[in-house]
C-alpha cells in the first residue's frame, strides 16, 4: 500500500484509552433528563395539550383513557388514527375551500384539506390532501367526492385513497405497541440466555432509552407516525441490540481474560477495543440513511429520520447506557467467568 494515509483505517489509533466509565454518571444524568423530556412530550402532545384534560374528556375505561393520551401524544397517520385520506392532483390550482365544501357535503364529519407537493415530479403541478373520518358507507362517500371533483377543479383526479376504519386503526395501534414491547422482551431474554442477567437488564435499558428518545422526537416535532415508523423502531431495536451485543461479547471475553481487573476498567477497555468498529459501522449506516433521507422521496423521509436518529441513539446507548448499567449490579466473576458453561481460555 503506497501512501501512508490510505487505507484511512490506519489513521484510527490502534489503541485508544478513552474513559467512558468516568463520565457514566454525567451520561446517566443526560440520558435520564432526555428520557423524561421525551415522556413529557409524549404525554402532552409535544407540550401542546394538557394530559389531564385529555384524560377527563376521553371515554371508557381508565386504560382506554390512558390510550387516548398516547394517541394525542403523536401526529398519528391514517393507519393509527383511522379515517380516509385522499390525494388529489390537478393541472390547475385547487380551490381548497371548494374542496372542503365538497368533503362536507359528502359526509358529516370534520374535513381537513391541505395543499401538498406532488409526486412524481412530472405529475400535474397542483396537489391536495383531503382527510375526513371514515364514514360507515365509506365507498359511497369516496364515490360522491370522485363525482363532485370536476366541479371543484377541472381535470383533477384521485391518485391515492387510504380508508381505515376505527376498528382496524385501533388494532394496528395496539398491535404496534405490543410488537415493540415483545421485541424488547425477547431481546432481553436472548441476552440473558447468552450472557448474564445483568447484561440483559443493561441491554433492555439501552433499548428502552433508544425507543423513548425516538418516540419523543416524533412526538415533539409532530412527524407523522405511521406503520412504517413502527417498522423503523423495531429495526432500531435490532440495530441497538446488535451494537450492544458486540460490546458485551468483548466484555465477556475480557472478563475471562483479565480476572483481576476492576470491572470499571474492564468496561472501558472493552469499549475502547470495539471503538473503531463502532465508528465505522455507525458511519456507513448514517451515510446510507442520509442518502435515503434526501433521495428516497417524501414517502420514506419519516422512516429515514427515525432510523438516523435511532442509530445515533443506539450507538450512544450501547456505550453509555447498556455497559455502565452492568456496573450497578456487578457481575459474578471467578471460576466460570462470565458464562455458565466452562469455556476454554483463549490461547494467548
Amino acid at each position: 500500500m503506497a501512501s501512508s494515509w490510505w487505507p484511512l483505517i490506519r489513521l484510527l489509533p490502534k489503541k485508544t484509552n478513552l474513559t467512558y466509565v468516568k463520565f457514566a454518571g454525567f451520561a446517566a444524568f443526560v440520558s435520564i433528563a432526555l428520557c423524561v423530556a421525551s415522556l413529557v412530550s409524549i404525554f402532552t402532545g409535544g407540550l401542546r395539550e394538557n394530559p389531564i384534560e385529555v384524560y377527563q374528556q376521553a371515554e371508557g375505561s381508565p386504560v382506554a383513557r390512558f390510550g387516548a393520551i398516547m394517541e394525542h401524544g403523536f401526529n398519528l397517520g391514517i393507519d393509527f388514527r383511522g379515517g380516509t385520506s385522499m390525494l388529489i392532483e390537478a393541472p390547475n390550482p385547487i380551490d381548497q375551500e371548494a374542496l372542503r365544501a365538497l368533503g362536507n357535503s359528502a359526509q358529516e364529519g370534520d374535513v381537513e384539506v391541505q395543499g401538498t407537493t406532488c409526486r412524481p415530479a412530472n405529475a400535474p403541478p397542483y396537489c391536495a390532501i383531503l382527510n375526513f373520518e371514515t364514514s360507515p358507507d365509506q365507498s359511497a362517500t369516496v364515490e360522491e367526492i370522485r363525482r363532485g371533483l370536476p366541479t371543484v377543479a377541472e381535470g383533477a383526479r384521485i391518485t391515492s385513497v387510504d380508508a381505515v376504519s376505527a376498528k382496524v386503526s385501533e388494532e394496528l395501534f395496539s398491535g404496534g405497541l405490543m410488537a415493540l414491547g415483545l421485541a424488547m422482551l425477547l431481546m432481553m431474554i436472548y441476552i440473558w440466555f447468552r450472557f448474564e442477567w445483568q447484561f440483559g437488564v443493561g441491554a433492555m435499558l439501552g433499548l428502552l432509552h433508544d425507543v423513548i428518545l425516538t418516540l419523543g422526537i416524533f412526538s415533539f416535532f409532530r412527524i407523522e407516525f405511521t406503520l412504517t415508523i413502527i417498522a423503523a423502531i423495531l429495526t432500531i431495536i435490532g440495530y441497538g441490540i446488535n451494537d450492544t451485543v458486540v460490546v458485551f461479547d468483548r466484555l465477556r471475553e475480557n472478563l475471562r481474560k483479565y480476572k483481576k481487573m476492576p470491572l470499571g476498567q474492564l468496561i472501558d477497555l472493552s469499549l475502547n477495543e470495539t471503538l473503531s468498529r463502532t465508528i465505522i459501522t455507525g458511519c456507513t449506516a448514517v451515510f446510507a440513511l442520509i442518502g435515503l433521507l434526501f433521495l428516497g422521496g417524501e414517502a420514506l423521509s419519516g422512516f429515514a429520520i427515525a432510523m438516523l436518529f435511532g442509530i445515533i441513539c443506539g450507538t450512544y446507548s450501547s456505550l453509555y447506557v447498556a455497559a455502565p448499567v452492568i456496573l450497578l449490579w456487578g457481575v459474578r466473576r471467578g471460576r466460570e467467568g462470565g458464562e455458565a458453561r466452562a469455556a476454554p481460555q483463549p490461547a494467548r
Partner: protein
Amino acid sequence: MLQVARWRIILVAVVTAMGIAFAFPNFVPERLRNSIPDFLPSQGINLGLDLRGGSQLLLEVDIVSLRAQQLDNVADQMAGALRDADPQIRFTGRGVVGDTARIRLIDPTQMERARTALRAIAVSPTGGTDPIYAYTESADGLIEARINEQHMRALSRQAAQQSIEIIRRRIDPTGTSEVSIVRQGDQRIVVQAPGVSDPEQLKERIGQTALMTFHLVREVSPEEAAGGILPPGTMVVGPYGTIGQGSEVVERRARLTGENLVRASVNTDPQTSEFVMSFQLDRQGALTFCRITREYTNQRFAILLDNQVLTAPRINEPICGGQGQISGNFTAQSASELALMLNAGALPAPLTVIDERTVDASLGQDSIESGARASAVAGLVTFVFMILAYGVFGIFACLALIVNFTLIIGAMSMIGAALTLPGIAGLILTIAMAVDANVLIYERMREEAATGRSPALSIDAGFNRAMITIFDANLTTILAAMILFQFGAGPVRGFAWTLSIGVITSVFTAVLVTQILVAWWFRIARPKTMPI
C-alpha cells in the same frame, strides 16, 4: 493456515450462481422474459401494491348477521330434532332472542327426552369434544341454546374461506387477472388487485348478491326470443361466465332457491364415465323438487346464478329422494367449478370493507424510482467509504456486498415475497449493515496484528474470533424481523422479508465470500505486514 476448505468454495460458487440465475430476470425487460430458457427461472420480484399501483381491500365477515343466521338455523334444527323424536315431542314458541335460539316444550315433563334429542344435534361435526351448542333449561319447558364461541369462530373462518372462492368468481371469473384473495385470521379477507385504480367497481362486484335459483325452461325458438316475442311471465337469461352454455328463456318465477341446496359434488357416471354433478336438497327442497320433476318430466329446468344460466339440464325422471344428478358437457374442472359455485353460491355472510387502500400506478412508479435512486446512492457511499477505510480489504467487502445484493434479489424473486416501499428501505439498511460483519472481522484482524502476530495468523484469528460476535449480533436482528412478521400488515411484512433475507445473506457473504477472497489474495500477494 488460510486454507479454505473445498466444500466452502463449492458452496459459495453454487449459491452465487443460483442467486444470479434467480436475480437475472429482474434485469431483463418484461417483454424479453419469455425468451429465457425454460430451465432457468424467469420470475421477477413480486412488487407490492404500493409500488406497482392498485387497490387493496380488507373485508370482514359480519359476525352479527352470521350469528343471527346461525341461530335461526339452530332453532330450525332444534325443532327438527324434537319433531323427529319418537314419539314426537311437542313444542311451541320457536325463535331467536338476542344471542340465543329458544324453543318451548308444551309438556315440561318431557324435558329428559328433549335433552337426549337435542344433544345429538350439538355434536361437533369436526370431531371436537365440546358440544357446539350450550343449552339452558327452565322448569317451565323453555330451552335456550347458545352457540359455543369456538364453534362460532370456526363458522366465521369457514364463511371467510367460502367467501374467497365466491369473491374470486365474481371479480375474476376468467382467472386471468392477478387478483390475490387470501384469508387473514378468523374473519377477514384481503383482496389485492394490482393495476386497479378505482376500487368502486371491485366493491360493487364483491357486494352483489349471488342468488341461486331453479327455473323451468320454456322452449322458445331463438328467432322469437331475439325478436322479443316471449310468452308471458318469462325472461331471457344469458350464460354465466364461461361455464354457462347459452341463453335460455325461463319462467320468471323461481321454483326453488339455493337455500334448499345442502351440498353439490362431482362424480363420474359409472356407465358413461362422464363427469356428473350430484346435489342434495334439504327436506323442503326435496318435496318441492319431487313435485316439479314429476309434473314436468322431459322438460328442461335451468339453474341460475345471479339471473345467469349455469346449466339447463333435461329432467329424465321424477327425482324424489332429494338427490339428483346433472349430466352435461362437463370436464373435471368445469364440474368441480360448478359444484364449488353451487355449494357456495351466495356469500355465507355479509362482508364489510374495513380498510381500503388505493395507489395510483404513477405514484408507485415514482416510489420505485426514488427507492432505486436512494439504494444506488447508499450502495455507492458504502463502497467509497469501505474502500477508503480498508483499501484492498475494502474492495473485498464491496465484492461481498455485490454478491449479497444479488442473493437478496435472487431470494426475493425465488420466494415470491412482495417488495414494498418499506422493503426498499430495508434493503438500503441491509446494504449498510451488511458491512458490519466485514468491519467486525477486519477490526479483529487489526487487533491481532497489533499484538505482533504474522498477517496469516492475524487473518485466521480475525475470522475465527469475530464469528461468535457476528452470530450473536445477527440473531437478534432475525428475532426483531420475526416479530415484524407476526405483527406486520402488508408493507411492513415486505420490510420484514427483506430484513431477514438480508441478514442471512449478509452473514453468508461477509463470512464465506470475504474469506475466500482474502485467502486468494494472500496466496498471491504474500504480504509481510497487514495492509490494514
